[in-house]
């Protein structure tokens, strides 16, 4: 450009303070014929060049474009973006199947739902890429989606396992609790004869526990836990009922009264030098005192509801009080028998009072025919209120006592099975309804 005609007319005078008219002039100059002519001359060489090389240039541009396109198409293939992530898909499926086998849908339903959903999204994306033309496929997002689905499935499996183990642990605990309560209920059921309702309840608890075990075996832990807890509650109710019934055996004032009755009987025997009988119901014992000393002690069976004091006929309870032998029966339905004077005046007075209070139904009497007889020694309470000892023992007792011999029957001395039952189970059942 040096030495030639200036391309741009110098329309803006140097040092001009007003730039605006100068700019207008400059623009006008740029499009002036003079300027265009100058430009045309300047680029005439270029035009000549293009005219001469146009096919070569075209070929060059075409080849560059072609190469660019080819590179654009081949690069994803070469880079592996188009390769279907079969291995990733397989891993994700395996993880999902593991989670399903672990029953994650049951033990971790939310996480499993997330995993299933993520897998479906990943598979849909997979299919979307799969149907594209090869160079346009890009499985990178699919790989990420499959990895996310696999992670979620693994988490679902882990949480499912954890949930199942937790549920199993809770069911195991409930089963152990049920076993313990049922064993306790059975123990108290063996210690005393339970009434029909309570006995049925105890049996129901055993059935419920068996059912709980069967349900546990088939893997339905929450239901097994529910049934085991039901069994435990039923058995606890049985224990509570039994402990309530036996509670008077641990009542200090009553135990003191019984001890006093025993002491008085022993004292009488000692002072009179006579023979006396003391029956301790809860100890299953009949003691024969002579001259204030125990000379014989027999194993005795009581009425099968002897946890109670006798109140009326048919209640199968052995009466508690001071009695005497009214007559000896060498020929009895129960081998031999010693008849007692139940009901005595005290029993009658109490019966009348209870009847007045409406605690005894109409048409029911105080009962009677209470005896000490044979055919006993069975190791369980089975009589309807009598005291039964073995035939060998009744033979021996028959020789030792006579009509008028005092017989003191008490609940116990505070150390027998009922008192023990209350001490052992009283605390554990006190919280139950």
């Amino acid at each position, binding site marked *: 450009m040096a030495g030639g005609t200036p391309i741009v007319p110098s329309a803006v005078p140097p040092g001009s303070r007003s730039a605006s008219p100068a700019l207008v002039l400059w623009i006008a100059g740029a499009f002036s014929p003079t300027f265009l002519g100058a430009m045309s001359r300047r680029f005439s060489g270029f035009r000549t060049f293009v005219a001469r090389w146009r096919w070569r240039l075209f070929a060059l541009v075409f080849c560059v474009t072609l190469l660019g396109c080819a590179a654009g198409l081949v690069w994803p293939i070469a880079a592996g973006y188009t390769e279907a992530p079969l291995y990733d898909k397989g891993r994700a499926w395996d993880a999902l199947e593991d989670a*399903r086998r672990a029953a994650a849908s049951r033990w971790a339903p939310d996480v499993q739902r997330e995993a*299933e959903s993520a*897998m*479906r999204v990943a*598979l*849909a994306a*997979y*299919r*979307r890429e799969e*149907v594209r033309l090869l160079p346009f496929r890009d499985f990178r997002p699919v790989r990420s989606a499959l990895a996310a689905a696999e992670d979620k499935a693994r988490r679902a499996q882990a949480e499912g396992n954890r949930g199942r183990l937790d549920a199993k642990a809770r069911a195991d605990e409930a089963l152990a609790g049920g076993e313990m309560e049922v064993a306790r209920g059975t123990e108290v059921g063996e210690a005393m*004869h*339970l009434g*029909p*309702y309570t*006995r*049925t*309840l*105890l*049996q*129901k608890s*055993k*059935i*419920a526990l*068996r*059912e709980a075990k*069967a*349900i546990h075996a*088939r893997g339905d832990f929450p239901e097994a836990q529910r049934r085991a807890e039901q069994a435990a509650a039923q058995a606890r109710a049985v224990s509570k009922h039994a402990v309530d019934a036996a509670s008077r055996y641990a009542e200090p004032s009553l135990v003191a009264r019984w001890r006093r009755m025993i002491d008085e009987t022993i004292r009488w025997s000692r002072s009179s030098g006579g023979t006396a009988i003391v029956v301790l119901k809860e100890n299953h014992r009949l003691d024969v005192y002579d001259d204030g000393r125990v000379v014989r002690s027999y194993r005795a*069976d009581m009425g*099968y509801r002897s946890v109670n004091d006798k109140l009326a006929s048919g209640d*199968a309870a052995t009466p508690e009080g001071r009695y005497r032998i009214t007559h000896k029966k060498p020929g009895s*339905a*129960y081998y031999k028998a010693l008849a007692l004077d139940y009901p005595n005046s005290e029993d009658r007075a109490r019966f009348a009072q209870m009847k007045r209070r409406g605690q005894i139904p109409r048409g029911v009497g105080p009962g009677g025919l209470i005896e000490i007889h044979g*055919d006993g020694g*069975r190791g*369980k*309470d*089975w*009589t*309807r209120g009598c005291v*039964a000892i073995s035939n060998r023992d009744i033979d021996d007792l028959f020789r030792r006592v006579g009509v008028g011999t005092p017989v003191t029957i008490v609940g116990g001395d505070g150390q027998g099975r009922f008192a023990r039952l209350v001490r052992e189970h009283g605390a554990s059942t006190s919280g139950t309804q």
Partner: protein
Amino acid sequence: MRKMMAVLSLVFGLVLVAGCSKPPQQAIDSANASIDAAKQAGAADYAPDSLRAVDDAKAALDAELKVQQDKFALFRSYKKSDELAADVKAKADKAAADAKANMEQAKNDATAAIGNVTTALADAKAALDKAPKGKGTAADIEAMKADLAAAEASLNDANAALSSGNYKDAKAKADAAASTIQNVMSQIQAAIDAKAGKK
């Protein structure tokens, strides 16, 4: 020229018809109906694995339909969708059949267990009525009656579970009651043997 126009129109029409293919709605509806039938047949409880296979196949079908719907209309092809719909239907039919078979098996098991326990209970009651009664048997008889009452209550629960279609529970309850009845029968037999021994 006219001939050429006619040929071009024909080709265009064919492309249009081929390009505007529609989803296999009938096959999809049929597959959905089969899925509903499988669920109603209790597949969730009695054939969970088969039902899961149905869910997977249905998910694959949905994905395929979505892929095709996202394509430009002329490039859609529902051939694979049709195959997948047929697969879903086949799997759903299998799930329904499995559920029915398993449910029938469970029902038969529960019915048989309840039948056995009902017979055993009747036998036990009859045996208890005929059991040797003597000195001191009142307490034992009362206890055994209470035990049988509990077994009967469990049997009633089992029958209720059977009626409501809860066959697994029905069987568990019946089996649990059976043990109690067997225990009572053993006690009665022991009493009979004891009496026979005394004679």
